[in-house]
């Protein structure tokens, strides 16, 4: 089947750096201001106030976070806000030694999915764990949010600096 494979031309990083291959570069300058809308707007305002909130579906009875104005399972409107706790349980986690653009980290970042107390079972959000020995992190570990001081909160997911072990 070799005849069905085209011998494309392989370049090395050096070929770019040393001018052996011509290339153009471009910054797309793709910038946005995404309307948060009703559900995420409420979520962001809650974060600014130092609390996590969810939405309730009267049909399946689930309390959902991140909040949404519709229940994706029942396809009906969610009908009220529910104040949740800022504590939860680690559903899964990782010890990550690289940044989003693949720069090596000495100390790992610990992303996790955290099931939030007061929301329905399995309702997690993604955040970071800190103030914890990486080797001690376990699935099932109880954690709580560490909030930025109120004056520094802007209405963002980063108004929670990280989650740390509870107690």
């Amino acid at each position, binding site marked *: 089947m070799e005849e069905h494979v085209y011998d494309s031309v392989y370049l090395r990083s050096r070929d770019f750096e040393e001018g052996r291959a011509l290339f153009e570069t471009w910054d797309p*300058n793709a910038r*946005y201001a*995404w*309307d948060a*809308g009703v*559900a995420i*707007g409420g979520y962001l305002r809650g974060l600014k106030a130092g609390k996590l909130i969810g939405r309730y579906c009267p049909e399946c009875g689930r309390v959902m976070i991140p909040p*949404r104005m519709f229940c*994706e399972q029942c*396809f009906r409107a969610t009908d009220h806000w529910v104040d949740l706790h800022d504590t939860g349980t680690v559903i899964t986690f990782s010890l990550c030694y690289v940044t989003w653009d693949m720069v090596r980290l000495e100390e790992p970042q610990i992303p996790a999915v955290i099931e939030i107390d007061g929301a329905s079972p399995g309702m997690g959000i993604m955040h970071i764990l800190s103030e914890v020995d990486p080797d001690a992190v376990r699935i099932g570990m109880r954690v709580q949010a560490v909030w930025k001081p109120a004056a520094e909160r802007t209405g963002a997911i980063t108004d929670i600096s990280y989650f740390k072990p509870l107690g």
Partner: protein
Amino acid sequence: MIREVAIVGAGWSGFRSITPDLSYKELMYEAAVQAYEEAGIDPRRDVDSFVTVAEDYNEGTSIFDEYVPDQLGALHRPVHTISGEGIHGLAAAVMQILTGRFDIVVVEGHSKASNILTLPYILAFAFDPVFNRPLAAHPYYVAGMEMMRYLVETGTTHRECACVVAKNRNNALLNPLAGFGAAISVDDVLASEPVAEPLKRLECAGHSDGAIVFVLAESATARALTDAPIWVRGVGWANDTFWLESRSWGLARYARDAAQMAYRTAGIKSPRAEIDFAEVDDTFAYKELQHLEALGLCPPGAAGEWTAAGGTELSGEFPVNPSGGALGEGHLLDATGLARALEVVLQLRGEAGQRQIADPEVGLAFGWRGVPTTGGAAVILTN
């Protein structure tokens, strides 16, 4: 067509230049609820497949189809995006139904154009990165060059192009969906500031936010769901080359080829005689004229004169863009062609209110993907 396909539900939301009260998900949800109510279906039970039309850089999200299923009731169902014009999405749904394995398919398209802070950069990001993008010019230069060539090749006048704007924005005054209605004159258009000469500011459609959802069904299902199905009689789509350096500038080849396919699948021999009205892409005023000619709805070079003489007005012999088109409703990015199709549906149902055409039976909608592309898609609908 081998198997008959009909539109049995339509929903929309937004259609305003900004929609700060709704996230894109909420915009889509509102349109979907309306379409499903109208069709009398439960998406969690009745829909076999979902198609959304979206481009990553219009959304500001890579792999946008991730964010599609929840607000459409499409969870755990076949869902895919078409990175194309809205009518490409309709065509994808039609093909799925024609296979015989899908009875109800939903098509969605939306725009949150107001959320894009750097729209000209996004369009420039579509250029060939080696031969065109380094010029770093506002992408509408392609429209300016195309308009110039079109005017010279066909003898169309700038004034005739401006007639399109006056017609469409006046039509939009009669359309509660349209946000760009205005009682403007041809002279107002010609007096607006230049963008890429000969193209003027008022000859370029503004942008709108909005969402549109259609429910399509095969014939037996369609008849069971509604007394007034709108039948899809033909679909067609085509591209010219992408290269600026070898495309056809005067004639919109992609529109001609797309229309020929649509007419072939619909069994239409003389489009002008067999079609009653059309909604065609008017992203730029000259595009409506160029497209009418390429679609075979008038002879080459005749669209300008026809328009100036009022032939394509609401009261004319062949109304074009009774909705107001993109010039009157605002350009809805990928959903623009669906907005064209939506008006055809409303007209064929007799639900077009003050802008209702008398007893139309066959309508055509045509969408173009915008600069710098040469992609277009057409659909022919009947009641």
